[in-house]
């Protein structure tokens, strides 16, 4: 039996209309989706507030309400504008402009209603917003042999996150270089060092961890650490090195070099003993 044409037409129209709407919306969605994916790549200068975690997860958790921005007492945080290269409406800061002052009560994290900023973070020293990297050793004044030290002095975790290490100044031949060294186990990525760097373009910069850190192959084992963990050598023990030294001398490899042995007189009473001594042996 043939169905009434009007009903057939309406079904046809329904299907076509549905397909029309669906494909239009799908195309629109494709555009939005691709744009959203692109906005996941955040520039290295844009730093997330404390407790933000992995960028992808943060973008799924942050609802762009700006409550962290409101509770930041130093106006460090701001929300990304649509034309900025950070995902629209998400909070970030630029260390060179205004760094994080590392408030002890972490108001930005407390303000976050969704937990996009992890509420487990209660000690600001545990925050990992990024990692400071002394990125240009050619212009850093301390590398040039001057005593700038500004990054070291402003570091809220001075002598933990940034230390100064001495090296001989080979250019002058008689001075020391005071090299600022960042330690990733302490650096929070607050950006005070980058903000304070006296150069026109900062030589030390806070970078996201993914850019700043290398990573050992997972199969790597560091021999000295394994030895310490095991409490003794895990392979055939090293044989004590035997030096062929003048009588009464010993070699200290920790830095002093050749030195008189405390165990033996430097010169035996009988000079013949020295001459007749077998190599390496005691008289």
């Amino acid at each position, binding site marked *: 039996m043939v169905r009434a044409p009007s009903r057939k037409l309406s079904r046809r129209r329904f299907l076509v209309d549905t397909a029309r709407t669906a494909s239009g919306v799908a195309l629109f*969605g494709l555009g939005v989706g691709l744009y*959203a994916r692109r906005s996941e790549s955040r520039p290295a200068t844009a730093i997330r507030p404390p407790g933000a975690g992995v960028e992808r997860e943060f973008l*799924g*958790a942050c*609802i762009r309400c700006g409550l962290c921005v409101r509770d930041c007492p130093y106006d460090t945080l701001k929300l990304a504008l649509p034309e900025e290269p950070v995902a629209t409406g998400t909070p970030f800061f630029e260390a060179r402009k205004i760094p994080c002052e590392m408030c002890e009560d972490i108001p930005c994290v407390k303000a976050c209603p*969704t937990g996009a900023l992890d509420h487990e973070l209660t000690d600001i020293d545990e925050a990992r917003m990024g990692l400071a990297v002394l990125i240009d050793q050619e212009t850093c004044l301390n590398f040039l042999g001057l005593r700038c030290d500004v990054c070291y002095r402003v570091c809220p975790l001075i002598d933990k996150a940034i230390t100064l290490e001495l090296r001989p100044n080979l250019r002058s031949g008689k001075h020391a270089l005071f090299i600022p060294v960042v330690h990733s186990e302490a650096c929070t990525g607050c950006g005070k060092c980058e903000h304070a760097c006296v150069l026109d373009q900062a030589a030390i910069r806070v970078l996201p961890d993914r850019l700043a850190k290398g990573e050992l192959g997972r199969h790597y084992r560091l021999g000295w650490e394994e030895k310490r963990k095991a409490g003794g050598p895990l392979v055939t023990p090293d044989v004590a090195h035997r030096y062929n030294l003048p009588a009464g001398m010993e070699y200290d490899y920790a830095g002093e070099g050749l030195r008189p042995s405390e165990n033996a007189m430097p010169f035996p009473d009988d000079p013949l003993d020295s001459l007749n001594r077998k190599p390496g042996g005691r008289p």
Partner: protein
Amino acid sequence: MSPLAPGREAILAKGWWRAHKWLLLRRASQLGILVLFLIGPWFGLWIVKGNLASSLTLEVLPLTDPHVLLQSLLAGHAVASTAVLGAAIVTVFYLLVGGRVYCSWVCPLNPVTDLAAWLRRRLNIKGSARMSRRTRYWVLGLTFVLALLTGTLAWEVINPVSLFHRGLIFGLGFAWAVVLGVFLFDLFVVRQGWCGHVCPVGAFYSLLTVPSLVRVSAAQRERCDDCMDCFAVCPEPQVIRPALKGAEQGIGPVIRSSQCTNCGRCIDVCALDVFRFATRYHAATKPHIRVAQNKEVSS
């Protein structure tokens, strides 16, 4: 009636103020909410912090947009309790007053699209691309699918509603271009295009309408003289007909469609006071017959 200026008879009959009562109240509500958010950053008087995505009032009352929160959940984030509580409060509120009260009384984009609709009438722009009013539910689905697929709040990257509201409070940037785009789309491309056809935020809130108590009722529908002014100003004109013209089919006078935004503009422009706000259970003549009330016409 005048096709270019619906409501003229109402002004003559009731006076300008009464013919704009609900419109003015709505503008006051929209502006008031915006001002509450703005006196913090402007004058340092912090009554409300945040924006419509999530806010904190007087340091105690959390409010969170349930649509945004749902996207976040689908993106795979275990949301903290404050936001869940805030979303629950908002959901309960709109379940009571009608979901799309958000659209007409709160949303900052509403004055923009209202302006486009007003200009459309004044300039007598008739053409409109054909688009289903159900498109918005597809787009709503899309916002969830995008969250699920990308693991991020993809829709919120371009959502003109949140873009505009956040922009007004935290700095607009180029968000004005998006708002202008919505305005021009409504003015030249599709009549009531954004709010009535595309916007997934409105679509989401329209789903919160089922038990809503506050509804517009065509209580005095027998007075209607078919001037069509209410249809001309209504942002969702398809919702009026069943209530206004359904007496013979035994349809109650209450506008039960979830797409009605409770804006009350039909009440304003009716010179004969056919409409008024009532409860959902309001019935004019035949309370025992409630059939086919939810039948809607899509244009």
